[in-house]
């Protein structure tokens, strides 16, 4: 009896977020129209509680042996890995809600649905990072996806938002068809959907059966793995499955774009790493070259497209593809997995801080109906609004990967993993891609600091407190992760080690 109750206890943060979503949805129905602005604040409560729980759980394990619990058989794993990614999702969601508070009111979006769907999406992400079984993985993937499809189109009156959302939905549903076909084939080849057993108690898992039955060249299994990679690569915005990214990121409401670019990508990579390093750890020689090619394509094409953009929102969208490429380099560093997985988690956290921060500045500068997002709108920002310009400058040099920022260390640890795995070529491509990215990131800084604008053309910026708080939190995170990385790194490494093979 007690074991099962304890299992539910391991899911506390997930359940808190889920109940929070239901509470927001119900409150919205019974609140008078004018009071609905409190819903954003209500949505912050479960996110904060969950973040507190997760941090406390991680704190309790730092130094000591890491704890690993199976929940519901082996469907879900409550390990430092899932806790670490929960931090990323919850930080992204809290920043996303802070960005939305003013925006939802200004654009007259349906507040109840907006925040409830955000919470449902976070719930899906958290489940995705926990799931160690393919059906659970698929369900979490869909919970996340359906919520985000609707969020992308929640500005119903704006045709671009509706268009972005329909495109995202059609391509996403198409990709989930591939994912689920892949799951069916893997199930057919092995007879199980459990990825691996971290405690080594059962060999009837995918990773165990691959070894036991020698399924290394099994056609069904390999086809299934390929389809699984396609399905997840779509969510992670990896070239050549990235066609939706620029349109959706541009058409979706800005706070949703910020939340998506950080949270959805992190969730996809959380599942990706668990899938490859967990369930298919014994097929590393097969999937590593594939990831190598995908990583090069993603870095090169993402950067090449970002250079040409004049619209900052679109530039950030393409550059987020490039960042997915950097994360892929870490996944390809299969033989150095003791450091590779930790570097994925660390980079996901840094990207969340700097990426969402940059989108927050877009909101500060942008005006009603998503105007003012051209590069030229940043002319002379430094002289008019020095703090906004300084924060944007910080996010840009961090995204570009300059030392003493979070982005530099994130890339440094990925490079470290790549070199230790003897992926010299990939490391060189990563370095060159970063240098190329300096051009378009620093161009924003140049526009802000080196150009002037006639007084008549000066436009006001948004001064909402919630936006200021979000920018400050993101900026502090970028500096803290860049200057004092040791704690976060130690946690990321501990989290990464939970995926190393102990048993089957």
């Amino acid at each position: 009896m007690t074991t099962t109750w304890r299992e539910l206890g391991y899911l506390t943060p997930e359940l808190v977020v889920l109940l929070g979503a239901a509470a927001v949805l119900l409150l919205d129905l019974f609140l008078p129209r004018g009071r609905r602005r409190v819903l954003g604040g209500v949505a912050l409560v479960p996110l904060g509680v969950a973040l507190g729980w997760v941090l406390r759980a991680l704190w309790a394990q730092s130094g000591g042996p890491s704890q690993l619990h199976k929940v519901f058989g082996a469907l879900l794993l409550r390990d430092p890995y899932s806790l670490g990614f929960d931090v990323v999702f919850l930080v992204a969601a809290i920043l996303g809600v802070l960005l939305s508070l003013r925006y939802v009111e200004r654009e007259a979006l349906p507040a109840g649905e907006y925040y409830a769907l955000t919470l449902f999406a976070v719930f899906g992400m958290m489940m995705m990072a926990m799931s160690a079984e393919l059906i659970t993985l698929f369900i979490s993937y869909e919970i996340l996806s359906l919520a985000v499809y609707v969020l992308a189109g929640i500005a119903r009156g704006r045709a671009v938002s509706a268009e972005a959302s329909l495109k995202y939905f059609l391509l996403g549903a198409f990709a989930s068809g591939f994912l689920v076909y892949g799951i069916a084939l893997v199930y057919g080849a092995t007879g199980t959907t459990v990825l691996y057993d971290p405690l080594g108690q059962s060999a009837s898992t995918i990773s165990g059966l691959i070894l036991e039955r020698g399924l290394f060249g099994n056609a069904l299994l390999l086809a299934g793995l390929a389809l699984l990679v396609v399905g997840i690569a779509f969510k992670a915005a990896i070239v050549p499955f990235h066609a939706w990214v620029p349109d959706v990121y541009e058409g979706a409401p800005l706070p949703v774009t910020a939340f998506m670019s950080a949270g959805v990508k992190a969730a996809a990579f959380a599942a990706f790493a668990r899938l490859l390093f967990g369930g298919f750890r014994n097929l590393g020689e097969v999937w590593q070259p594939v990831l190598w090619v995908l990583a090069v394509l993603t870095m090169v094409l993402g950067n090449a497209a970002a250079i040409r953009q004049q619209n900052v929102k679109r530039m950030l969208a393409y550059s987020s593809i490039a960042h997915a490429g950097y994360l892929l380099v870490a996944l390809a560093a299969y033989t150095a997995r003791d450091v590779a997985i930790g570097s994925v988690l660390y980079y996901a956290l840094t990207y969340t801080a700097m990426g969402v921060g940059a989108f927050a500045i877009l909101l500060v500068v942008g005006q009603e109906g998503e105007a003012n997002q051209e590069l030229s709108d940043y002319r002379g920002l430094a002289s008019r609004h020095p703090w906004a310009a300084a924060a944007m400058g910080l996010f840009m040099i961090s995204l570009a990967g300059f030392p003493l920022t979070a982005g530099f260390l994130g890339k440094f640890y990925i490079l470290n993993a790549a070199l230790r795995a003897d992926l010299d070529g990939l490391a060189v491509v990563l370095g060159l891609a970063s240098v190329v990215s300096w051009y378009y990131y620093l161009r924003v800084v140049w526009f802000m600091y080196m150009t002037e604008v006639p007084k008549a053309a000066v436009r006001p910026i948004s001064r909402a407190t919630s936006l200021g708080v979000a920018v400050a939190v993101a900026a502090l995170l970028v500096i803290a992760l860049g200057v004092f990385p040791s704690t976060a790194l130690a946690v990321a490494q501990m989290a990464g080690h939970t995926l190393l093979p102990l048993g089957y």
Partner: protein
Amino acid sequence: MPTLTTPIPANPAADWLPVAVFLVTAVLFAAVLLWIPRLIAPRHPTPDKARPYECGERVSGEFWQQIHIGYYLFALVFIIFDVEVVFLWPYVRVLGGRLIPQGLGLFVFFDLLLFVGILVVALVYAWRKGVLRWE
């Protein structure tokens, strides 16, 4: 004689023979039923007779009519709940079959309550949004 114990080699065609016979019979039956009236029934078509049958009323409007959008919401609510009910089966099968004998009845109860509770939230939402009212 060992012939009785030797297995007769299976003839794949023989297994499918009943199916084939059934198919042919069905097609023939339908064809004959269509052919007999043509042979014996009198045919005097008039414009009135050629009209589609609408319970004796005069035909009005187009056949390809737009369906009221309200049906869409009803269908949506219906299909979600319809499919969710399917889940009660695996629930009963797994939780009831394995956990209740272990003395976990209360846990099963609250687990199901959570599941149904989420559905109730959805229903309350649909109700307050006026989906259940036909204007």
